């Protein structure tokens, strides 16, 4: 079989992928409705009972020789992975996308969600032997508050005070009500370390695995610490995480069995990978990176909403998804909220590619035959340049001259993004719609990369945080999304799929609504058949 064969027929191949969530849901429905034969049900149960032992060899992209063990500096997949091997958070996101207690056994809001009380699990010990208590948790949370370099600083900025109630209970007071606060503690920066732990040349945690070897840029080895407190988890004897930044090398290593799991398979070649008998490809649909072009709403000509609408009608989203992402992406609707997210506004129609409307709005803006410039770089996201060129072609049909300027990926986030009037950006998935919208669209957000500032929108978002009535909350978020879609400066054209590859003997790799590689916790969740 040749490579070109598979590339020409991406869709026939994509049909082969089993979305396990659907498959399992289907099986459960069958089991309830008709009753499965006893033998096969038993077999299925046996197959799902985790076995202990073995070394999991991960081959990953998303890290470098500059990686640190300090959770405040984590920004990419590899640190997130070893962080969750070694440590736990207060909360984790479960298979359904809900906040579930991790080191917090339970949590409940104070009336009006103006504060939260977290009850910590008892009898949990760090690898160093210390027993977990409220002081450890408070210290760990405070690493990301006040004068800090932490990437999670903004997430915790709504907290006014953290108080110890008992050795196993803390109370968090908020500046404004927030009904979804627990999700914040599922963030990968916010790992729980012992009180006073400050020497991050090593890392002490309560995770299933203790750090053995840390060679950033080469490999990270962890060993099972034994007696992990989560039932059925922490099954591998050890985990060897290797840095394999080259997608072709990673794929090859997976197919030939030199590693057991690989992240970020290349959509261009994944159809070929799926044909390898040794490999299982797990696709998580529409929860990956949100790919977008962003225009600054306070810079001409993008101050005009007609120009912004022309930008949105003038892009052929389906063509980009099919051509650049080979079908392994979902088309976007100009917000960072994909259909898989809770409170996604289903009633807002998907904006189509409509050159006539684009031309109409562009004319209405009255800026004549102005030339627009879009700055892109592969440093923004892989496929940005190709997408931009397709965009340019699509805009041509609307009679709009869009110039694509390719810039260096080096220093892109520093020099281009947030500074240039129209440029490429990706946004990662966040556990809640509040996080997702707040970080990008609030007037006060540091990363408001469209300079779209609407006090009405801010009001809705702040109010929704404190709204405990589900229905009202959904309505508020629908309204907020509509405002962005109709008025915002973001042309979000696609949401990527996560594509993980596993060796056939790796089990427990169901897709997760949060991140790829089972929420980057495959080391903790998986086992060998």
């Amino acid at each position, binding site marked *: 079989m040749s490579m070109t064969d598979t590339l020409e027929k991406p869709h026939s191949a994509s049909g082969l992928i089993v979305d396990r969530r659907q498959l399992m849901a289907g099986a459960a429905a069958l089991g309830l409705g008709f009753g499965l034969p006893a033998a096969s049900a038993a077999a299925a149960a046996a197959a799902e009972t985790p076995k202990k032992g073995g070394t999991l060899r991960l*081959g990953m992209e998303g890290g*470098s*020789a*500059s*990686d*640190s*063990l*300090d959770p405040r*500096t984590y*920004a990419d997949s590899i640190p997130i992975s070893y962080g969750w091997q070694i440590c736990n958070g207060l909360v984790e996101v479960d298979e359904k996308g809900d906040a579930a207690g991790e080191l917090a056994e339970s949590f409940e809001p104070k009336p009006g969600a103006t504060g939260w009380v977290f009850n910590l699990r008892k009898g949990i010990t760090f690898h160093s032997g210390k027993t977990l208590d409220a002081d450890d948790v408070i210290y760990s949370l405070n690493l990301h508050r006040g*004068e*800090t*370099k*932490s*990437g999670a*600083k*903004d997430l915790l900025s709504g907290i006014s005070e953290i108080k110890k109630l008992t050795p196993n209970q803390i109370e968090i007071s908020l500046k404004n009500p927030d009904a979804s606060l627990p999700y914040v503690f599922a963030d990968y920066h916010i790992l729980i370390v012992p009180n006073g732990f400050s020497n*991050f*040349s090593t890392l002490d945690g309560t995770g299933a695995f203790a750090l053995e070897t840390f*060679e*950033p*840029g*080469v*490999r990270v080895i962890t060993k099972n610490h034994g007696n992990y407190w989560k039932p059925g988890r922490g099954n591998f004897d050890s985990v060897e995480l*290797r*840095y*394999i*930044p*080259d997608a*072709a*090398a990673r794929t*090859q*290593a997976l*197919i*030939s069995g*030199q*590693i057991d799991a690989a992240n970020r398979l290349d959509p261009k070649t994944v159809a070929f990978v799926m044909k390898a008998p040794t490999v299982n490809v797990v696709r998580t649909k529409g929860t990956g990176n949100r790919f977008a072009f962003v225009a600054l709403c306070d810079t001409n000509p993008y101050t005009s909403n007609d120009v912004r609408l022309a930008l949105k009608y003038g892009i052929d989203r389906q063509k980009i998804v099919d051509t650049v992402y080979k079908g392994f992406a979902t088309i976007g609707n100009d917000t960072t909220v994909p259909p898989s997210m809770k409170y996604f506004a289903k009633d807002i129609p998907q904006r189509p590619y409509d050159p006539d409307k684009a031309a109409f709005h562009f004319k209405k803006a009255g800026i004549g035959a102005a030339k627009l410039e879009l700055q892109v770089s592969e440093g923004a996201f892989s496929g940005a340049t190709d997408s931009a060129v397709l965009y340019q072609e699509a805009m041509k049909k609307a009679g709009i001259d869009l110039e694509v300027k390719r810039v260096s990926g*080096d*220093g892109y*986030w*520093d*020099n281009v*993004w947030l500074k240039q009037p129209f440029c490429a950006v990706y946004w990662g998935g966040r556990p809640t719609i509040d996080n997702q919208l707040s970080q990008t669209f609030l007037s006060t957000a*540091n*990363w408001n990369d469209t300079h779209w500032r609407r006090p009405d929108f801010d009001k809705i978002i702040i109010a929704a945080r404190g709204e405990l009535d589900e229905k009202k909350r959904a309505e508020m978020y629908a309204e907020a999304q509509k405002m962005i879609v109709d008025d915002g400066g973001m042309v979000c054209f696609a949401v990527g799929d996560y594509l993980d590859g596993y060796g056939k003997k790796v089990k427990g790799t169901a897709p997760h609504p949060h991140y790829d590689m089972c929420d980057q916790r495959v080391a903790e969740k998986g086992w060998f058949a």
Partner: protein
Amino acid sequence: MLRLVATRAALGVLTLLAVSVLIFICTQILPGDVAAAVLGQQATPDALKVFRAELGLDKPAYIRYFTWLFGVLHGDFGRALTNQRDIIEELLPRFMNTLFLAGYAAAISVPIAVGLGIMSAIREGRISDRVANVLTLIAISVPEFFVGYILIFIFTSQLDWFPSLATVSSDMSVGDRFYVATLPALTLTLVVLAHMLRMTRNAVLSIMSTAYIEMAFLKGLSRTRVVSRHALPNAAGPIVSVVALDLAYLVVGVVVVENVFVYPGVGQYMVDAVAKRDVPVIQACGLVFAAVFVVLNTLADILAIVFNPRLRHRRVASHGHLRA
């Protein structure tokens, strides 16, 4: 001879100093700094300020340079700005890996290149000369990473003889190291072969056109004997220079091959450091690379003297005359 070595060593130190200044200036010209690069898309002005103060980046550039230089003169290369790891401890094993791979590749490529080069010179214009030339030229014309992929396709995917991941580690036996590093070494061999082969061939051929070689032929000696006994000793100097240059390339120019085979060498370490603007790490890698060039060039000059009786028996041999 001793004087030569001493002069070259002194010049070498000056070169290294110049290199360090140059690298430092370049890293200052590059947009962004380590704090912005590490925090990337999640950087906030507050976080950046804290990070910069923590690393002393709020001090003027020249003060940071001299602080660094002072440390280096005391044998302290400092710690990486990004993750506070000791640079020497990080760099040394990687440098050993790089030397190992370069040595492995050289052990394969130098004998083949020099052997084929001499053979080509002896059989100038004949079919074996042409075949060797064409094949090596093809190998050098294909990008390195592609040569790597082709070798992976043949030796890993099809034949399953060698692994495509060449991650060597300290807990590996010597045999294992050679085994896993075979494909990258072969890739590098193919990359440097053409250059060395053609330079060897040309060096021998240019000697072949001199009067004393003609004399040797007139004495009735065979072509093989003329080349091996009369031409080769005099061609050795230029050949050694070329080999030294290629060896230096094997040490400093292999980041692409490291990437394809996931080989933990200095190249990737330096590239990561540049991406993150980790100046002390860039400096350390740059100095190591510059030192490799200085040492190999000095060695080449010394060897040229050893091979050349005229230079060997002169009191003063300066660098300039050798190349003339």
